[in-house]
């Protein structure tokens, strides 16, 4: 009699489903994933893989890891990154060497595709967690990522 066993199996699976959602219902107070955003602005932490904007981390001595190879500029599909570079004398070896002058990042054109970060051989640029990007003038969205007077971190090119 598969007719009756079907019915019992059906009821059993329905109850299984209801117990799953019931557990979620009971734990919803602690486990709610909703962020009440403007209220918890101070404590809000975005997810690790959140793509807010491209940033260039600097260490305490104002040094970054960008060698100016321009791979990110080539990889970018819509010209978001512009690297203005120069040749300077390297202090250790005394040879002429390429270095970045300004790493210009147009946030207004960025689609957050992440190709620049994937392609970077020295991990100089990363995803930032900031998302409060509204400004009154769009020129404010054009950013220079390397801080003024910053230098290349030694040992990156090795």
């Amino acid at each position: 009699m598969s007719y009756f066993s079907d019915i019992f199996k059906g009821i059993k699976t329905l109850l299984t489903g209801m117990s799953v959602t019931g557990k979620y219902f009971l734990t919803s107070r602690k486990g709610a994933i909703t962020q009440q955003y403007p209220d918890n602005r101070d404590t809000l932490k975005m997810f690790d893989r959140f793509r807010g904007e491209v940033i260039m981390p600097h260490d305490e001595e104002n040094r970054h890891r960008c060698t100016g190879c321009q791979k990110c500029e080539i990889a970018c599909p819509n010209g978001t990154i512009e690297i203005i570079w120069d040749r300077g004398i390297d202090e250790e070896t005394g040879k002429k060497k390429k270095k970045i002058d300004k790493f210009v990042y147009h946030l207004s054109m960025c689609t957050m595709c992440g190709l620049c970060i994937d392609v970077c051989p020295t991990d100089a640029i990363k995803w930032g967690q900031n998302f409060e990007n509204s400004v009154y003038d769009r020129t404010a969205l054009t950013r220079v990522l390397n801080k003024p007077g910053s230098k290349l971190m030694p040992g990156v090119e090795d």
Partner: protein
Amino acid sequence: MIRALSITKSIHDWLYSSMSENMAHLVEMVLIALVYLAIFSVAGLFLVLIERRVAAWFQLRIGPNRVGFQGLLQTMADALKLVSKELTGTERADKFLYNLAPYFVIITALMALAVIPFTQDFQAFDINIGILFLIAISSIGVIGILLGGWSSNNKFALIGAMRSGVQTISYELSIGLSLLTMILITGSLQLSQIVEVQKNGWLIVQGHIPAIIAFMIYMIAGTAETNRAPFDMAEAESELGAGFHTEYSGMKFAYFFLAEFINMFIIAAIATTVFFGAWLSPFGITESIPILGVFWFLAKAMVLVFLMMWFRWTFPRLRVDQLLTLEWKYLLPLNLMNIVIMALIVWQNLIIRF
């Protein structure tokens, strides 16, 4: 015909002493109609809010909690917004039927509300064919849906309305038969009589196994009757836009929306009356305070409403063929078998009574 709550007895007496009998009768009817309209709108708005909060909790969200304390005024604000919105319509729509449809839905819901025994004396219309009246009225509501879908001049609305028709015609049988199973114990269709019988134990206890089966069938068919998920073929957002009320806007849409929630409450209220002893308290603990009957009635009804919300946020939608298979191949034969079992139990007097 009209039995007033004991608190309103004085109003009743005052009305009859201050004016002629016919006039007093008329005024009293208008007053009761207003009271029920108020219950209708407040309960509707409250249920919409509850649904949204419960849905949020099932989905690990928070839900509306900004307007008023814990979002209590959220649906009130939504209703105000809907009142202020323009009433739009489609070209070459059947204007008369289009405007008439929401009232069919809302009036049938109100009429069903009238016979529900909230407590001992709080029942507007204690008709002696109560259950039959409820079943008949609740299936008239589908005419409103059919008219709305038909007159909208929109193919999605028409498909939604036709699906709703198919569904209601099928599941009416199960609702009727599962209630009939319980009528075998009570021997009366009058709701006050049904409550009277349950003073020796709620019917779900009296009827034990067949009563539980009947209750399960009733809840499945009742969910289908209100066009709620998993039986929301009539609105099926992902397929039909909004189904039969795609073309409705503003307050006319709100009527459909409120009526859906009131119908859910009515289904729960019928289940409360027939299976769970209506306003009777468990083991008669508050027998001496009759006004608490309202509390018990609403508490039981809310538990059942919660159960229906639980269904909605757990189960995926059925296909049309699965819907009809469930009704005609499973629920209907089981129901008929269940009636025979119940008849045997009543005949052999195997009912559990305290």
